[in-house]
């Protein structure tokens, strides 16, 4: 990994991608959201008690390869996805965006998040944590190759399920 070079990617460009992603996820435009990902993207939510672990050796909350991630989107759009029907209202606050490393076409970036999730007659669910992203430059477009959403909560507890995309 080299130190960040301003010419490789600007923070503004990474922020634009993250804000666009947050907008699509909050609007449940999940097919469009898949368009922000590479064809071999993965999505991880590590367990609360082992936030730095490797999904091959540790039981995660979510560890999707692109195949299962696409299936997750199919599920989330289905009214039979009972945990998210009617779909939750969510609002994501993305901040502290940083480009931490670049290596050729690959960019590592981080951000903090606060995601509010609302369901009828339920107290608000507040998911707080940070993202670790691996981004790739493909045909001039910045795409998401890996996203890892790490929750700060010691246990999921009253957050219940992670039934929407963090």
């Amino acid at each position, binding site marked *: 990994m080299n130190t960040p070079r301003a010419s490789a990617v600007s923070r503004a460009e990474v922020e634009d991608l993250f804000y666009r992603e947050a907008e699509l996820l909050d609007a449940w435009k999940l097919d469009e959201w898949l368009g922000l990902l590479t064809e071999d993207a993965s999505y991880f939510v590590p367990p609360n008690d082992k936030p730095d672990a490797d999904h091959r050796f540790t*039981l*995660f909350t979510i560890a999707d390869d692109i195949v299962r991630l696409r299936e997750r989107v199919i599920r989330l759009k289905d009214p039979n996805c009972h945990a998210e029907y009617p779909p939750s209202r969510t609002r994501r606050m993305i901040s502290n965006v940083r480009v931490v490393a670049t290596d050729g076409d690959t960019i590592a970036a981080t951000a903090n998040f606060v995601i509010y999730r609302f369901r009828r007659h339920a107290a608000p669910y507040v998911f707080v944590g940070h993202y670790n992203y691996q981004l790739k430059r493909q045909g001039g477009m910045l795409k998401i190759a890996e996203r890892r959403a790490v929750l700060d909560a*010691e*246990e999921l507890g009253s957050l219940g399920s*992670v*039934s929407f995309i963090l």
Partner: protein
Amino acid sequence: MNKHQNGHGNGRLVAESRENMTFSVNREVFVSREILEREQRTLFDQCWIYVGHDSEVRNPGDFRTRWVAGRPIIFIRGQDGTARCLINSCRHRGATVCREREGTARNFFCMYHGWTYGLDGALRGVPGEEAYPPSFDKAKMGLVAAPRFENYRDFWFLNFDPGAPELVTYLAGAKEYIDLVVDQSPSGRMEIISGTQEYDIKANWKLLVENSVDDYHLIATHTTWLNYMRNSGVNVAPPKGSGLLLPTKGLGKDLGNGHLTTDNPNFRGRPVARWISVYGEEAKADIDAIRAELVQRVGEARAARIADTNRNLVVFPNLVINDGSSVTVRNFYPVAPDHMRVTAWALGPVEETEAQRARRLHAFLTFYGPGGFATPDDVAALEAVQQGFAAWRDVQWNDLSRGMARNDDQLDTDEGHIRVFWRRWSELMETPA
């Protein structure tokens, strides 16, 4: 107000008539604080309650802290190699003496006044000890151990009733099904895999007992998971041609003492040892090799019993071992009548290679857990049920009569095995004075 209208009950909360083939549970059992209080005293203080798995405290000094039956507990392996279950409360003024989730300890230090305890619970150090009167006996002031602490094949349970029967007696027919899980390991040693799923459900804890073994709800609740399996090329229809040692169809079974299980022919694949397309072509030879080892070790018939059937086992009252597309150990406690805390782990053979372990975990997350394709919908179902119970005075009874007219075995989609839980619950909670 007549609490038991509709001819049900005769004053009981679990009302069964074999003659009329009716079985009803009064919804008060899911909403009443008074009943929850009695459950704590009757069920959780008198039954064998799961604490943890031997593999979680592998080396001397290894400990885990957790809540068991409403108490703060330290599950610890001493320097002498003995696993112990200590109550995490200082004998002086009550503070928990171990506040970390897990780790390796040399002693326990109470941060309030500095009392120090050994890993066996003995009180070692008391600052300013000379100020205590002669009646103060350090030897009698160690951390209190659970009155009973026993294991079956590395599953450790405690019992707060010193006079309880031995664990192996208590487990009754559940032992056979625990064996079917543990015998998947060539050395008979399973381990809890790192990574804990801890999540709350805003529902009564007994609803998760029912849900964990209820195969009737699969089609309605888990449509999206079935779609995913279909999209992945898995034949989700039950197979034909089982028999003899294997159940020919899914069954629901009474294992005695309130324990129960489903016993189903497998058609969703298993890491040990039944391949399905989601594992990928490259996994086929590996799973064949696991199968060959199993057959060589236990014979064809036993291998088929282990690898070609699934089971969702309830050890009364609150331990579930689901052995299907992966193995999950699931434990849950009431916080309030409408609120439970769930802890779930993955279990696997200690011998697994990295590839096998990765495949097991991948299979686990497809169905199970708070981010899986199925568990969140179970949670949604149980929370919807609990909301419906707000009208428990107006709509009083749950119907659990499914399958009662059947003359032969109860199916997994019947409610015969769920009735086993409720009969035991009623025996303990409603025994006439």
